[in-house]
């Protein structure tokens, strides 16, 4: 019996994509959360705005979850290593781009939280700036979906 088969390769892809995006989101949300806690110490009334901004870098993990879900759905015990590698490759865009974009989005969100700490009316601008980074995660999600086919 072979240790490495198509099924395992595909699963490794799903795992890698999810791991990378998950680590990135944790870093991003963690950073924004720390800055947010600082702001809330001084001004607890900003909780809702802080929470919205803090949550933004978590979407990358949701995207990676979707991809992992699709990959697991396509797994077939009889699949060849090449077929497995196709699915592995499909997980890379959301994994790698998700990892990096979540960290950077966390930084933008942290800065956005500081912005609303000074100007309460700037929530929309702060969210918009953070969503600019989101675009790359969305594009990598689409790329991964297209690759799964």
């Amino acid at each position: 019996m072979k240790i490495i088969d198509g099924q395992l390769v595909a699963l490794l892809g799903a795992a890698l994509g999810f791991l990378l995006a998950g680590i990135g989101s944790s870093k991003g949300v963690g950073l924004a959360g720390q800055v947010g806690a600082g702001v809330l110490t001084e001004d607890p009334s900003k909780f809702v705005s802080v929470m919205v901004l803090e949550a933004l870098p978590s979407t990358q993990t949701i995207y990676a979850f979707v991809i992992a879900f699709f990959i697991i759905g396509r797994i077939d015990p009889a699949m060849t290593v090449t077929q497995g590698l196709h699915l592995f490759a499909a997980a890379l865009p959301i994994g790698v781009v998700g990892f990096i974009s979540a960290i950077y989005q966390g930084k933008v969100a942290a800065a956005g939280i500081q912005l609303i700490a000074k100007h309460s009316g700037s929530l929309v601008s702060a969210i918009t700036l953070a969503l600019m980074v989101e675009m790359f995660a969305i594009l990598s999600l689409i790329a991964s979906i297209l690759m799964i086919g």
Partner: protein
Amino acid sequence: MLKINEGDYSYASGLIRAKEPKLLTGSQYARMLDAASAEEAYKVLTDAGYGTGGSQQGVFAFEQLLADEMKKCFMLLAEIAPKAEVIKVFQRRYDYFNIKVLLKAELSGQEIPTILVDTGTISSDSMTRMIRERDYSEFTPLMADAVAQVYDVFARMQDPQAVDLILDKASYQEFAADINNIDSPFLRDLADFMIDITNIRMFIRARSLNKSWDFIMKLLLDGGTILKEVYQRNSDKPADSFAEDIRKSRYGDAVKKGLELVNTGKNSSGLEKAMDDLLMKYIRRAKLVTIGVEPLIAYLFAKETEIRNVRMIMTGKINGLPADMIRERLRDSYV
């Protein structure tokens, strides 16, 4: 070497950003300046949450209010800074101030004035005891050396000015040494900046009093980006030629502008203001830093400047000076 790990400053940076809108604004300054009486101006401060409950004891005790406000600021920073040593670097300047006041009182045989501050690393009560008992165990080596030097020099020369000179120099020397021990380009550059503008101020003041190079040389602090030679070659020339010499440095424009104000008689303290405003302009760079030590230090400078401005306004109001006269002396604020 004290490492600064920026990530550790996330919470503190967020908190400080939320504190910044509570610094006095232009309209609050305007209300204080246009107030009909000193009491009314004082009320703006208490409304803005100045001091602690117990320190709001009426307009003539405003110094106490300001001292408490500064203390509050240092306590906050020391509490939220991941490494309190970074804040202590800035607090030691107040230790030197207390030492100066205490030594001068002792050497001139006068009573200790009530201007001691509690913003240093050593409380004013402990400091009073330590100087009285000559117990320097909690002093830094530089502090203890400076105190010994003061006793020595005063015994020989009986010159109270020497006390200022020795302690001011030691204070900056300690500040620069402490900052060079912290791994932060922003702080190092800040130390250079502060040393330079202090030297420029002292040099121009000494020049206006026609002091010799021998005298000026003793005043100048070590460090900074402007070399001693620049001061030396201008030490027998008018202040304007010095301004021309440093025209291309980052201080050039401010020195020129300040000297113009002084020379045209518009504002005798114009140079001081120009240099302070230049420093504030430098400090404002911290606004671009989301997470790091910069927002904390910038807040400290913002608060110090605010308190100086408030002191000018309150003193002016109590003495009935016209608002415009006070206004033109106010330093630019951080926000």
